[in-house]
């Protein structure tokens, strides 16, 4: 019993320490102050500052547009790549897999610098396209990694049966193969989204100066003088959004579980 209480308190203590910085910002996002520690009465002023700040709003929009575009491109390329890898000869499979692992194991700064050098070498002007390429390089290996196991679990005979029954290869691909690996594709898409949303280094190295994202605008603010209260409001909103998604996911998972249990 004592052991159990100790274990629980350790888990909650570390959790509290882990969330302390975020909770501090959340608390001080509800008062109009520049310095953390002085409470000037309850106020929504930081939220007004946030929504009135055009730069942050643009950065927020850019971040979402970039993540969605990179997510979609990565998912398409990754699906194509994973299916291709799965049906390649052993040697081609090993070679492509090895190349695909490079961005996963490499330090992000090396990936970022190498891309920046590639663009400099060929005199390619930095634009949304170069940034998109950077984000696809960063995320596509993870899409491939989440689809390949689904291909291995799949029943290959169904595809062959579709061909025997007269489906063209591309028809069989779309209506037989793709549906079987859809969970992997979705997982890969979500992973690509989260990696893109969180990225700073590759973004900073491959973007054009005019394109700001949440990461780059916050980095500038943190380095210069610390977060102003508009950023505290932003942190609070992001925190609540993530928490909300988690709670919904948790409820959905337990509903699914209950449904399965009722079935058997």
């Amino acid at each position, binding site marked *: 019993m004592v052991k*159990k209480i100790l*274990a*629980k308190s*350790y*888990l909650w203590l*570390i*959790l509290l320490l*882990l969330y*302390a*910085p975020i909770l501090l*910002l959340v608390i001080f996002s509800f008062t109009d102050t520049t310095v*953390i*520690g002085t409470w000037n009465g309850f106020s929504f002023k930081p939220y007004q500052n946030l929504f009135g700040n055009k730069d942050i709003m643009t950065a927020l929009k850019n971040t979402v547009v970039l993540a969605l575009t990179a997510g979609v491109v990565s998912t398409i*390329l990754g699906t*194509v*790549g994973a*299916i*291709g*890898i799965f*049906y390649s000869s052993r040697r*081609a499979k090993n070679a*492509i897999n090895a*190349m*695909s692992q*490079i*961005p*996963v*194991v490499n*330090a*992000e*700064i*090396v*990936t970022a*610098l*190498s*891309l920046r*050098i*590639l663009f*400099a*070498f060929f005199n390619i002007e930095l634009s949304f396209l170069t940034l998109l390429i950077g984000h*696809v390089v960063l995320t596509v290996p993870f899409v*491939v*990694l989440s689809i390949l196991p689904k291909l291995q679990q799949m029943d290959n005979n169904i595809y062959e049966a579709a061909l025997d029954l007269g489906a063209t*290869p*591309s028809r069989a691909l779309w209506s037989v193969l793709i549906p079987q690996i859809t969970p992997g594709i979705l997982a890969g898409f979500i992973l690509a989204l989260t990696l893109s949303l*969180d990225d700073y*280094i590759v973004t900073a190295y491959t973007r054009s100066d005019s394109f700001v994202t949440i990461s780059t605008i*916050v*980095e500038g603010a*943190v*380095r210069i003088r*610390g*977060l102003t209260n508009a*950023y505290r409001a932003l*942190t609070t909103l*992001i*925190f609540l959004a*993530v928490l909300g998604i988690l709670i919904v996911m*948790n409820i959905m*998972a337990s509903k699914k579980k209950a449904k399965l249990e009722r079935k058997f």
Partner: protein
Amino acid sequence: MLKLKFRRKHLAIIYAVFLIAFVVAPLLLIFYYAFTNDAGQITFHRMVNFFTDSSSLNDLLVSILIGAANTVLCLLIGYPVAYLLANPKYNKSKMMLLLYVMPMWINFVLRTGATKDLLYWIGISGNNRPYTATLIGMVYNYLPFVILPLYATMQKMDQSQVEAARDLGANPFQTFIKLIIPMTMPGIVSAILMVFVPTMSSFVISNALGGAKVNLIGNNINTSFNYSRWGDGSFMAIIMLLLIGLTFLLTKNVNKEEGRGSLW
């Protein structure tokens, strides 16, 4: 007329071309820039400069020390957390694990800014304790990345072996050293791979928290990027690649199939 027949393995070509253009070619360019001068002639002066300059060697040593300290701290804090989370005796809810992983989904630059505010509030800043502040920021950032792979291996751990060890007379300490640690080694290795090298490259944290006093190898690469000194940056990137290779070699024997990718 030659008609190209659609084969699923042909899809791999698209992905392979993308990887060669944006992963392999950029890395080759890093080697090209590191060992040539502005006129395109082969030179080793960057290597000589790096290994004869006391400040760059000092920064390399500091990077390795901070990387190692962060890895050890994350393991010391995260191992018990993962152990308790995976043990149904102490924790039955999936929500607790999700809460531990959730900070990963809040923008990492924002989290670093939040950590800076918290530390400033309790009197630790880049001005008075740059290394402490940087290290705390690193632990905050990387702890979830340690807990997740450790949790994954601990869930697969065979509990009956632990009971067998106890029945055969092993005390808790012996069980831990001789059984639990070896069984969870793949998770420990994944954790090391996820923390050690990335710590050295995350210059955002040392920039924000170290008050411009902590120079990791990532900071130096970033400085040469800011001044478009591609050659110097490239040579330091090669040092990073060597360190990554070294970590893999040192951990290879323990771990054959698990890597950073296995986390997902």
